[in-house]
C-alpha cells in the first residue's frame, strides 16, 4: 500500500482542507440568502439541485470533504497502532468508505437534479 508517499498524502490533505473551506463557505451562504427556515423548504432545496454551478459545487464539497475526512481518520487510526496488517487494513477500509460516501452522495445529487425521478 505505498502508491503515494505520506508527504504527498499530507499535501493532498492540506489542499483538500483549504479548498473545502471555500466551497463550504459558499454552501453555507446559500442558506443565508433567504431566511434559514425558508431555505430548507423542499422547492427551494430542489431548485438548488437544478442549478448546474451549484451542483458542481455540491459534488466538489462531497469529494473534497470525503478525501480530507477519511484520510484524517486514517491518520488518527495509524497514530494509535502500527503494524503492516493494521496499516493496510485501515487504508483499504478508509478508501472503501470514502468511495461509498461519494457514490451515495453523487446518487442524491443526480436524482435530486431530476435525472433520476422526474
Amino acid at each position, binding site marked *: 500500500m505505498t502508491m503515494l508517499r505520506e508527504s504527498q498524502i499530507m499535501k493532498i490533505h*492540506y489542499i483538500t482542507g483549504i479548498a473545502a473551506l471555500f466551497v463550504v463557505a459558499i454552501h453555507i451562504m446559500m442558506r443565508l440568502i433567504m431566511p434559514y427556515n425558508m431555505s430548507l423548504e423542499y422547492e427551494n432545496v430542489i431548485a438548488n439541485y437544478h442549478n448546474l454551478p451549484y451542483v458542481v459545487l455540491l459534488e466538489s464539497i462531497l469529494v473534497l470533504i470525503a478525501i480530507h475526512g477519511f484520510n484524517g*481518520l486514517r491518520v488518527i487510526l495509524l497514530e494509535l497502532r502500527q503494524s503492516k496488517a493494521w496499516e493496510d487494513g485501515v487504508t483499504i477500509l478508509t478508501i472503501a468508505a470514502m468511495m461509498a460516501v461519494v457514490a451515495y452522495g453523487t446518487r442524491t445529487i443526480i436524482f435530486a437534479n431530476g435525472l433520476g425521478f422526474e
Partner: protein
Amino acid sequence: MAKMDRNNREGIKGWLNPGRYGWERVSYWLQRLTGVGLLAYFVGHIYETSSLTQGPDAWAAMLELTQTSMGHLILLLVIGMSMYHSVNGIRLIFTHGGKGLGRPGRPDYPYDAVSLNYRQKSGIWIALILAAASMLYGASVLLGGE
C-alpha cells in the same frame, strides 16, 4: 524489547493526557476530536439530504427529525467544531511548513522548547475564540426565529 515497547503504548489515553504538553496537547486532541465529529456529521448530512430523492413528504419527515432544539444544538456544535478545525488546521499547515516555530538554539535549563511559543499558543486561542464567536452567530440565525 520491541514487543514490550508495543505493550507500553498508551493509545487514546495518551491523547487525552494534556499534562505533559500543555495547550499544544489540548489543541492536538481537539483537532482530532473535531475532525472525527465533523466526519460523523458529514456522513449523517449526506444521509439526511438523500431523503430529498423520496419526495416532499420524506424531506418534511426528515426536517421534523432534525429541525428541533436538539438538532439545532448539534448544528451549533458542528459550527464551532468547523471553525476550530479550520483555523487550527491553518495554523498546523504553517507549523508543518516551519513557520512560527522560532529559531533553533542551544538547549539550556529549564529546556523550554522554542517551538512551543507564544505564536503557537495565540493561534490556538484565536481558533477557540473564533469557534465561540461563530457559535454565537449561528445561534442568532438558528434560534433567531426567522
